């Protein structure tokens, strides 16, 4: 038993060493948290080191086992007796490491357990991706089957798709509450529209601006699949936990399953959700065709023009209840700032409400997703609540103040944040179960100043003295808007 305790002590020491090592890598001595690239590089380094060490140990174990199989019996006895001399426990443990087959055996069982863990992890992994694998490949690119007979289209932001459980379901109404002073909703709108154009889905865009069509020139362009791939492996490394190396060899195939529809396809057309480079404008040929309809809503009284446009647009995609799911094509409607003050209808709240209601009613029986952005502060409180109730998926975006010292101290990665995204409601079509997310507040960041990414808020470590950034990073903000932890 003493032997056992010595061994466990040894392993404890070892694990302490390894964690200390890891934290040292992470916290840069002075407690400063490293930037993401640096951290990624270090994660790779740590992974390499760990792998090498494990490899070495394994080899050693094999060799020793082969050599000392026969001559071991007496030594075991001696080793078992030896540790009784209290103060020498650690030392004897070292001895046992050198020559004791018992330890070797222990080591081997350890390795074995790792292997078995991997073996058990494998079916779990596959069951995790079952939903995607079991679903037959969609006939149309850009559509994905979801639960309860719904079909998803992508929001144009890979992270948002993941957060919402697949994307925007067809037939749903998505509302984005704008920050009245910041244009963050445009980021969501642009990606949503671009994704639709890339998938060759017809688009209806309505905006209060004088020349809505000019907005198309600001749409971001999808990255080529090669860039795409490198970026994904990058981010994968980035996020890789320190233990993830164990599953490394399973990562490849898992990826092909999981991301098969995303990065392995050489052709852009096969991708469900592209990454959009915000610096590159969308090529003209995407929106030069007849598929894009632009409407100005500034001076249409009582929204009649928009209503007509929506009706004719939705008529292309109507489905009867019977043919649900056999959707061949999907459409997208993007309406920007529906209640903008420059519009004539902006003070006719009931007209806007009845427009939304009729739009929603028609959406439900068509293969279309509509995204409406609106600044809730411009509506009366009760009206704004009504709008929120009508939304199937309700998001809100907000800017973060530039020099908010308190927030900067509270959140890690504050410097890279562009804004915050709140998820208030996730569409519940054909089900009564609400979607409860782990976190509802996400930070909007620009990866390499090009790609829009969403991340959970990470609480910054206090003073960085403990260096336990991994321990506390789980603490994401709750459901409230104010960042209370």
């Amino acid at each position, binding site marked *: 038993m003493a032997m056992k305790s010595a061994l466990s002590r040894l392993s404890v020491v070892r694990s302490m060493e390894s964690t200390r090592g890891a934290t040292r890598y992470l916290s840069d001595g002075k407690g400063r948290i490293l930037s993401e690239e640096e951290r990624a590089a270090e994660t790779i380094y740590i992974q390499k080191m760990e792998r090498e060490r494990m490899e070495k140990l394994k080899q050693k174990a094999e060799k020793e086992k082969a050599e000392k199989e026969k001559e071991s019996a007496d030594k075991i006895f001696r080793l078992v007796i030896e540790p009784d001399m209290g103060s020498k426990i650690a030392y004897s443990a070292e001895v046992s490491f050198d020559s004791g087959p018992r330890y070797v055996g222990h080591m081997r069982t350890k390795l074995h357990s790792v292997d078995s863990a991997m073996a058990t992890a494998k079916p779990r992994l596959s069951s995790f991706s079952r939903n995607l694998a079991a679903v037959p490949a969609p006939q149309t690119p850009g559509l994905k089957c979801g639960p*309860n*007979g719904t079909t998803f289209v992508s929001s144009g932001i890979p992270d948002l798709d993941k957060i919402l459980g697949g994307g925007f379901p067809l037939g749903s109404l998505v509302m984005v509450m704008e920050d009245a002073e910041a244009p963050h909703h445009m980021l969501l709108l642009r990606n949503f529209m671009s994704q639709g154009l890339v998938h060759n889905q017809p688009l209806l865009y309505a905006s209060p601006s004088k020349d809505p069509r000019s907005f198309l020139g600001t749409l971001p362009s999808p990255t080529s699949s090669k860039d795409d791939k490198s970026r994904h492996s990058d981010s994968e490394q980035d996020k890789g936990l320190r233990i993830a190396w164990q599953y490394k060899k399973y990562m490849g195939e898992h990826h092909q399953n999981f991301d098969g529809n995303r990065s392995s396809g050489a052709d852009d057309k096969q991708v469900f959700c592209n990454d959009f480079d915000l610096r590159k404008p969308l090529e003209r040929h995407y929106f030069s065709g007849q598929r894009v309809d632009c409407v100005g809503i500034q001076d249409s009284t009582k929204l009649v023009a928009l209503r007509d446009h929506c009706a004719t647009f939705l008529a292309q995609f109507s489905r009867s*209840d019977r043919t*649900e799911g056999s959707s061949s094509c999907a459409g997208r409607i993007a309406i920007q700032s529906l209640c903008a003050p420059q519009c004539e209808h902006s003070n006719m*709240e*009931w*007209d806007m*409400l*009845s427009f939304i*209601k*009729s739009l*929603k*009613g*028609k959406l*439900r*029986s068509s293969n279309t997703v509509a995204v409406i952005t609106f600044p809730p502060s411009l509506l*009366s*409180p*009760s009206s704004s*609540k*009504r709008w*929120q*109730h*009508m939304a199937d998926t*309700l998001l809100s975006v907000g800017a973060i103040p530039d020099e908010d010292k308190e927030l900067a101290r509270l959140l890690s990665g504050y410097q890279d944040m562009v804004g915050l995204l709140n998820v*208030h*409601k996730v569409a*519940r*079509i*054909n*089900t*009564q*179960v*609400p979607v*409860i997310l782990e976190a509802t507040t996400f930070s909007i960041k620009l990866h390499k100043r090009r790609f829009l990414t969403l991340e959970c808020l990470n609480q910054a470590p206090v003073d960085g003295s403990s260096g336990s950034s991994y321990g506390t990073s789980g603490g994401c903000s*709750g*459901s*409230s808007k104010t960042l209370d932890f």
Partner: protein
Amino acid sequence: MNDNQSLNLLDRALGLEQQSRPWPLSGRVVLIEDRVETTASFVLHQLIKRSLPPNSSNVVVFVAFANPFSHYDRVLRKLGCNLVTQRDNNRFFFFDMLMLQCPDGDEGKSKVGLVSLYEKIHKTISSLPEDKKSYVTVMIDDISLMEVAANGASDYVLDFLHYCHALTSEFGCSLVALNHEDIYSNTETPTFILQIEYLADILIKAEPLATGLAADVHGQLTVLNKATSHGLGSSRNKVYNFHFKVKENSVEYFYPGSRG
């Protein structure tokens, strides 16, 4: 009536455990209120299921402003109730009002307004055989969308609800309606919601927890069961309070703190 075991806290709070009458809610008005954060549509679904037990002849008249039939059909099928069959058996009447728009002003004259909707409901109920009439449940999902359909003319909506209330005394049927509480909480004189609350015999409120939503607790229900005029017993209001967790095939109700 062997399903006494399957009655949950909400059923008990609604008084559904009473065996004396075939449909305990008959003659009563149930109002369900919810918020943006917590939807209470699951209460409606449960009441549909309770109103349509397999070996009875109860009837549900459903006025839908929020979702198409396919949605309710899918949800209820998971709860173990086939709405298509019930519809074919004339036990479930579905009025799809998703596209209803009544221009304000000429309410009485137009053929698509709330008046004609009420006439349709009335006709449906009175065409039922005599023994079924008192086991009818009229359900409205939801009142705030009805207001939108009436273009903000809440008086028409109130009139409609009063008419429906009259049905409960005329035929002895029950009325169940869903509304959103937070829409009215900001107005200075929330006359509209107060009037509806006054009509209601049973008020069910769904609220999020103060500590936010969790995966195990989706919110809390407060059920206010107003005095029954039928019994001779005590006439004080009863308040029930419990938490719930919504699942696909059922809803779990439990007292606060009784779940780890």
